């Protein structure tokens, strides 16, 4: 399979990347664009560690081939806020959510997707929406609390 060159917008910046057409977006982001906040966890869309926003919607970047993301808008954890000021990031710090931290970029990106479509989610809605993302350290209690804190804080935007 010969390489293709694709142009896409990542965190507001236009990027042109060359790789095999079936290369998952995940590896393009991590190894070519050096945006390593997006993590590799399972490679098959089971854990959510690689969650990014694609055209504004949270999705697992390991499931999208480069050939399918041409011209699309990608937001990674690095693009969520310039200075860790997103309400979710502040709430994550206030609740001291992360333990090993490896899944947390994905958790935050997924939570940002939730708050965008549902700024005041109930606990049940949070649990339902967040369940695709695994945290092996089991920080779920604090993730849920942090989302509630961010939602209660107002001014939520992605």
């Amino acid at each position, binding site marked *: 399979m010969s390489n293709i060159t694709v142009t896409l917008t990542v965190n507001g910046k236009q990027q042109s990347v060359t790789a095999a057409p079936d290369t998952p977006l995940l590896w393009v982001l991590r190894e*070519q664009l050096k945006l390593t906040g997006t993590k590799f966890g*399972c490679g098959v869309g089971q854990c959510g560690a690689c969650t990014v926003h694609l055209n504004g919607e949270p999705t697992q970047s390991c499931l999208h081939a480069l050939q399918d993301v041409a011209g699309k808008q990608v937001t990674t954890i690095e693009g969520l806020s310039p200075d860790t000021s997103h309400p979710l990031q502040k709430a994550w710090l206030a609740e*001291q959510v992360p*333990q*090993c*931290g*490896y*899944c947390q970029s994905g958790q935050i990106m997924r939570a940002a997707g939730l708050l965008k479509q549902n700024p005041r989610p109930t606990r049940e809605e949070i649990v339902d929406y967040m369940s*695709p993302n695994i945290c*092996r350290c089991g920080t779920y209690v604090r993730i849920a609390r942090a989302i509630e804190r961010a939602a209660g804080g107002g001014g939520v935007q992605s």
Partner: protein
Amino acid sequence: MKTTKNAKAATLNAGRRRFMTGAAGLTFGIAAGAPALQHLVAGAAEAATGSVRLNNWVTVFTDGTVAIMSPAAEMGQGSLTALPVIVADEMDADWSRVRIVAAPPNDKLYGNPAFRFLQYTAGSATVTGYFNNLRQFGAQVRYVLLDNAAQRWGVPLAEVVSEPGYAVHPRSGRRLSYGEIAAFAKVPAQAPEVTVEPVAKAQFRLIGKDLPRVDVAGKVNGSAQYSIDVQVPGMVYGAILREPVEGAAPEKIDDREARAIDGVLQIAPLKFGVGVIAQNPWAAFKAKKALKVTWSREATGWGFSNDKGYAQFAALAKDPNAKGVAWETQGDIAGAMGKAATVFEGEYRADYAYHAQMEPLNSVAAVTADGCEIWCGTQSQTVAVTAAAAALGIPEAKVKFNGMLLGGGFGRRGNRDVEFIVDSVLMSKAAGKPVKVMWTREDDLHNGRFRPLYVNRIRAGLDSQGKIVAWHHRVVSDRVLAFMDPVRYKESKGRDNIAMRGTELPTYDIAHRLAEGLQQDTGMRTAPLRAIGVGQNSFANEVFIDELAAKLGVDPVEFRILQLAGTPRAQRAKNAIEEVARMADWGRKRRGRGLGVAYLDYSGTQVAGIAEVSLARDGRIHVHDFWCVIDAGVAVQPDNIIAQTQSSIVYGLGLALTERIDIVDGAVKQSNFYDYHVPRMRDIPNIHIKLVQTRNHPTGAGQMATPLVPSAIANALFQLTGVRLRQQPLLPERVLHAMAEAGVSIA
């Protein structure tokens, strides 16, 4: 803050000075100017020249910054922060001026006393193991700073007190910051002997407060660096197809398809597998998948399965002529069992279980003619260096170590051969370039090193009053220590602490006890897994205790309390059990729900838990609430102990209900999170934790509640249905099978 009322009283022993030797000895440094910590953080201690005078634990800078070394690996458990807190507390540092520096690999200086001075972060033994020494070191630094201030002022040392970051002379109102003292201080060549207050009386200033963990900020914006994130100039990517069974070797390699993949640079046959080197990870993974390899059939593990293991282990567990290695023995077990009024017996099992740390194993290495540089997340910095040096046949001094954050450890990254680090060393040597070797999730499972398969058999003798007088616990399992750490195994006299821990019963008052291990070499790959042997051995203990209570018609909470000894440690156990029963409103019956209790003394930490469950028609157990009380003595970072306990409970929930590895013809059947099910947010009960802070030496906190969960759930299921489950995990089909056998139907 800066009042004399808050000042730390001088508890200095000015008269006595003694040379301190060995690992307990402190040197500390004074440095001019602002800190150049990045050199230290990178672990390149020798590179940190210039304004930084190198030292073992503490450097005080003239700008007031206090750099404190932390020898712990950070995998989410918080000890990277907790250890410097202990030093800073005793030296009365201003925490806002403290910078934490990851200590370089050096067992002699930074080894954990709990592991015979191996620099190894494991076993929830970090705070407890380093605590006394770090308090001593902190007190020595404070002594030297105050002594320098006293000399400058010409006053007796006894008149000088400290406030955070300051030496103060209350009588004259004079004060000097630690940074100001650093500008003129003389550091004695010999460390002063300083007496610290015993834990029961000490006035802590930082210990017991919730200070933000130093690693957390980078974990919410993607900047935290794990080894998988490392990129070095000229780096290529490696993937390895490993032998499906430990010890098998590639006999025939068909790599035609693999070589044809764009971006593949090299195929590197290895003793234990076949390596692929490629320009990017995707090509490396595709090529690995395309390899066709025939494996030698000599390895021990071929043909093995869970069923074969259970058959073999269960026969041994029952065999009166078999004799194990004694793990704990007290009194006269044979005599007491013979005299007992009644003898009960129970058998408990556990499947293999997988760590599932979120970061698949990986490392980066750059091998050159001069040596080797490695980047890795490891539970032991020094073991990593030794293994890399051995793989290349070079002196350890030629290995440059870069410690990275660990995306989860849980015991998987502390094996003596650290194969996931040696992988990149071998591949870099083969490629002649820096290589990042990443395991896929499938590799992480197929090459997994698991909590072993277990068959536990317990016999208990009771006297006519219903008191337990004899307890014989036999554990048959795969060997763990001999496989994961031959060095420690050699020192252990055949006692496999990873498999056997948790069979000891330090708080139950049972006069005659024997815990013996019969660990088997089945050829399976094993490792410590969060809570090690305690995870299964405590399950066996606590379900069996529950069975005894039921047979005697005594309430399970009451029965446990009745078995407790009269020691202070057992009093703490009693408090924990009574408190958790109160929290759960134990006596209140719930319609369609069952409650189950479990208790554990885990390395001195007292934990008790209660689960509330219901049962679905398909055999699925639903855990609604979990209450837990933990008393780990002095809580250095209380909220972090709560966080660790939440984490332990969630981890225990997966092990209790869904997590199992199946071995088929010696190889691992499961491949990814679609067939190895770990808890998700929707699976989590309401978790209620009470941290009891007592004035005892701090004990472990990182995994203590994990073993409570399966036993409390199994005991709750019994209360609900009258049916006992004696095998982890408590799978729906096992529940349905047990109920069918007992003739019980789901309400």
